């Protein structure tokens, strides 16, 4: 099974040169290749998720360690190793990534200009994301973290869409530049923190399992943890540094914003959990209230500002910020239920947002505008599309039976358990606000009398419908039967030092 894990990274990277070979006169060929690659990745992810079971120790399974650089300069034994391993937290996120890439390939089926370059960059992004979820070496964790950010600029700048608003305009170049610069800016903090951690641990290696044991003294952790928190927080849509997310998603093409909001934002939260909280438990303990405050602000702030948006993609962008605020709250509760909830929310929100972007993208492809006030009664020409978007909306407002509720419930219980009752109440309130803006959008754009202008709209393409069904399957699976997810996540979360009972 180790090589299946390796395949997760090798396939996307190997497929890139293959795309290059395809002459650009045959876009269909590159689409089939992309679908094939997406399919295999999805199958492998499902296989890995299903096959993973906890067997004691730190929960790491299918380990694969190749020495990359050792005993040179400041690197001691096992200095930098290409160390892959799947643990309980990684398994569901690997599955999420598999699902979203498979769906994204179908959604971006009719990208016309420079199809093959699009897919090259898309699969580069996927390779980066897989790398982060399964690499156990801090150097390669950061390596893949940056690889995931690398193609974002071109994906948005070349295939994106600028948009005019009454009071301001957001060109796609602006969106792409801001997104890339803020993410890389965030990663600077992470970079410095890694240096400090390496020096302090003195073990001469980046192997996280070794760094975990290194007893770092208390106030060092308190100083370095906020670097990780803010550094990764930028990508996780942490409150003050979240502005790239709405603008980036508005400018990005559907497939990209699916992958981005669906999976890439989870990298940030995953980073905080995997690197911040596991390696610096006391630091996490000390900064938990601040993270909780930021998470709650993000949640309420995101949902309130989503209320006032008229552009569909902006609304979904702000809702992602709000849901990521929930994830941060879950992490900050520092107890097992909350952290489980956070990881569940990462998966749930990934599937939900991907589904929302699929639907908005489908609508945008046909109607070429995203202003919900100009739509009316689209349920008539596009019933399935409405059904899919409603399911995504309902899941995001936390209807039981869908993924959103299971995750949010755990987070709220965890937050209350950790004693932040004010944060819990505000969180539940922001879930209610989410209900408001989702339903307001549904009733205004989808229900009500059909606006004649949109009578010509046709149903979603078959590819998009397949993607939507795939995502709904994930939402329903987690909503109705979360046991497989919880069992995997909770064992590993237990292993994290500093997570109270």
């Amino acid at each position, binding site marked *: 099974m180790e090589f299946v894990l390796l395949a997760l990274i090798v396939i996307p990277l190997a497929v890139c040169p293959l795309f290059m070979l395809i002459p650009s006169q045959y876009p269909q060929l590159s689409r089939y290749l992309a679908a094939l690659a997406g399919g295999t990745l999805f199958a492998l992810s499902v296989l890995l998720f299903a096959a993973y079971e906890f067997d004691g120790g730190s929960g790491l399974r299918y380990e694969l360690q190749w020495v990359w650089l050792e005993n040179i300069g400041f690197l001691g034994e096992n200095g930098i190793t290409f160390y892959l391993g799947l643990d309980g937290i990684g398994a569901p996120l690997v599955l999420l990534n598999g699902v979203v890439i498979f769906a994204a390939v179908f959604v971006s089926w009719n990208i016309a200009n420079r199809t093959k370059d699009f897919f090259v960059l898309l699969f580069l992004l996927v390779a980066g994301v897989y790398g982060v979820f399964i690499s156990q070496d801090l150097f390669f964790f950061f390596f893949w973290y940056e690889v995931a950010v690398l193609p974002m600029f071109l994906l948005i700048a070349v295939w994106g869409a600028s948009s005019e608003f009454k009071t301001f305009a957001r060109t796609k170049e602006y969106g792409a530049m801001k997104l890339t610069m803020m993410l890389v800016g965030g990663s600077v903090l992470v970079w410095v923190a890694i240096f400090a951690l390496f020096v302090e641990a003195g073990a001469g290696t980046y192997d996280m399992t070794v760094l975990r044991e290194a007893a770092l003294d208390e106030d060092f952790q308190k100083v370095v943890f906020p670097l990780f928190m803010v550094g990764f927080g930028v990508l996780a849509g942490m409150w003050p540094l979240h502005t790239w997310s709405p603008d980036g998603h508005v400018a990005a093409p559907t497939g990209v914003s699916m992958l981005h909001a669906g999976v890439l934002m989870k990298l940030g939260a995953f980073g905080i959990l995997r690197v911040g909280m596991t390696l610096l438990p006391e630091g996490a303990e000390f900064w938990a209230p601040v993270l909780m405050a930021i998470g709650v602000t993000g949640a309420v702030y995101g949902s309130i500002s989503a209320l*006032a948006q008229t552009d569909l993609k902006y609304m979904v962008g*702000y809702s992602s910020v709000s849901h990521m605020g929930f994830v941060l709250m879950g992490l900050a509760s520092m107890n097992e239920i909350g952290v489980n909830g956070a990881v569940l929310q990462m998966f749930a929100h990934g599937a939900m947002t991907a589904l929302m972007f699929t639907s908005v993208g489908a609508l945008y492809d046909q109607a070429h505008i995203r202003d919900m006030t100009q739509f009316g009664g689209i349920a008539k020409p596009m019933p399935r599309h409405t059904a899919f978007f409603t399911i995504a909306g309902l899941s995001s407002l936390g209807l039981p039976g869908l993924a959103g509720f299971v995750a949010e419930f755990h987070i709220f219980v965890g937050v209350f*358990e950790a004693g932040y009752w004010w944060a819990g109440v505000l969180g539940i309130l922001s879930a*209610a606000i989410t209900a408001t803006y989702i339903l307001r959008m549904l*009733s205004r754009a989808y229900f*009500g009398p059909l606006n004649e202008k949109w009578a010509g709209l046709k149903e979603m393409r078959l590819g998009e419908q397949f993607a939507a069904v795939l995502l709904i399957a994930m939402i329903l699976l987690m909503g109705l039967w979360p046991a497989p997810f919880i069992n995997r996540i909770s064992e590993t979360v237990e292993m994290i030092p500093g997570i109270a009972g």
Partner: protein
Amino acid sequence: MDQAWLIPAIPAAAFVILLIFGPYLPRKGDWLAIAAIGASFILVFPLLADLLDQADGATYVAGERAWEWLSFDLSGVGETFEIEIGFYVDPITIVMLAVVTLVALMVQVYSIAYMKGDSRYGWYFTAMSLFAASMLTLVLANNLLLLYAGWEAVGFCSFLLIGFWWEKRSAAEAAKKAFITTRIGDVGLLIGIIMLWLEGPNTFNIQEIIAFAQEGGYDSTYLTAAVLFMFMGALGKSGQFPLHVWLPDAMEGPTPVSALIHAATMVVAGVYLVARMLPLFEVADPIALDVVLVVGLTTVMISATMGLAATDIKRVIAYSTLNSLGLMFVALGSSAVTAAMLYLFVHGFFKALLFLGAGSVIHATEEQDMNRLGGLAKKMPVTAAMFAIGTLAMIGIIPLSGFWAKDEVLVFANEEQPLIVYLVLLSSLVITGLYMTRLFVRTFLFAPRDQGVYDHAHESGLLITVPLLILGLLATVAGFVVFDEVGEALGFPGGIAQFVFLREAHEFEFHLDTAITSTVLAGGGAVAGWILWQNKAELAASVRDRFAPIATLLANRYYIDEVYQFAIDHIVLGAGTVVAWFDRVVVNDGGVGGSAKIGYLAGFEAKFLQSGRLPNYALAIVSGILLLSIVMLVALV
């Protein structure tokens, strides 16, 4: 006992089948939905039978079965965090199951005729099955989380069904309003559940929580807060005072939907929740029960008065529902579970009857406004007769079921509560008499106001009238359950009172004095109503003119809607716009853009250092050298 999970499972299975294969089934699968709800109805009786034969004397043993849905162990504290799915059957559940399944069956049969020819006929029955499944899960749930899941699912179904004809802007808005208002209520419920779990015995199981509370596990202020939060959820769902705005608008949905959801089942879920959790209310300090009482009273008074002004017949019935719910909450406020459950049991039938009657009128005349109806009795005798029974039951005239249940509530109100409560209830009796007769008279008797509508009217087919007849029969007979002899006759040892009680077996005493006063007042109201609104209703018009300001106030539902709308538009949406603006301009352009600009400007200034003239460059080198050497010498030497 352990097949109880079948009851919600069958409609759920029907829902799934209809959802996927619905359009391809013959007659769009309506028979499947009805068969499913029929099966659930039938399954209630074996449950009842089990419960009865296990019962020794008057005490009933509740059956419970649970399966583990999700669990992981908490390392630090040692226990495990468990969520389970299970059902808990006790007398209250049986009463609820009976009402829900029966009324649902009646409504679905009725809908075959009513919804015939609708473009989304199949989808209607799919949503109905989902509703039935979730309502039954809610009723049967043994733990608060499953109850909450059913609670939300029911809310979602009401959103679907109110917005069934979503082409109409008003229907879409009403559906949205209903779902959001109930969601706001559910915020409280969720907080309550978590609070109970937090300090309680680390489980969501209702009975364990109640047992824990009764041993004094929670400290009283904490428990009161949790319980009031939960009551907030009941407020939203049952349309009580602050969150009642959505119920009148919910009439946008098809009438059978209103009959099922907004009369017999969903709105009653709040009452069921409070009834189920009453022991908690009692352990908490009395303020909790007083709040329930006051809310019930205010809803009773508001709905009754608004009923007077409404002209749409469905809205009038909706107000009557609010009125009855208020009464139930008053009963619960004086911790009379028996009275509340009895009233709920009875109310389900005659309110469904009223709605279906109105439905048959609408089906026949395509008209809902009272001013355009009138004199239909001749054209629709059966509907008129059944509607009359419903109206009289609602007012609470002696032989019909409404009287007995309302009487119980009055008895308790009189004994437990201060006099003011009793007086308010009595005055509400009068007003109920007034607006119910107004409704009946304006619709069925005297000269038809719109000839076109009148000619168009015809008696509805059997599929509509038969459920009306059944419900009519039940509305009359159900009241006699009060007498223990009738209870024993039906096989309940010690009568129904024994069956549904909280603290100790409770005898239905027939208080002659309250019975007489209530009948006199109710009858007087009815007669006054008859006089006011007979033939051209000139007298009513003159009364309205004299009290013009009050009339307009009532017509506009005390402007509560406008206040809420204002609040939403200005405070919530306003906050949204401000936050969105703040986010875009201050955080984004100011913060992020600003720092980028600083870098840009720094580079801009530094660019001009490069003047292109050689002496400047030489000067830079010399200054570099001087600075370096001076600092080095000063620092190091």
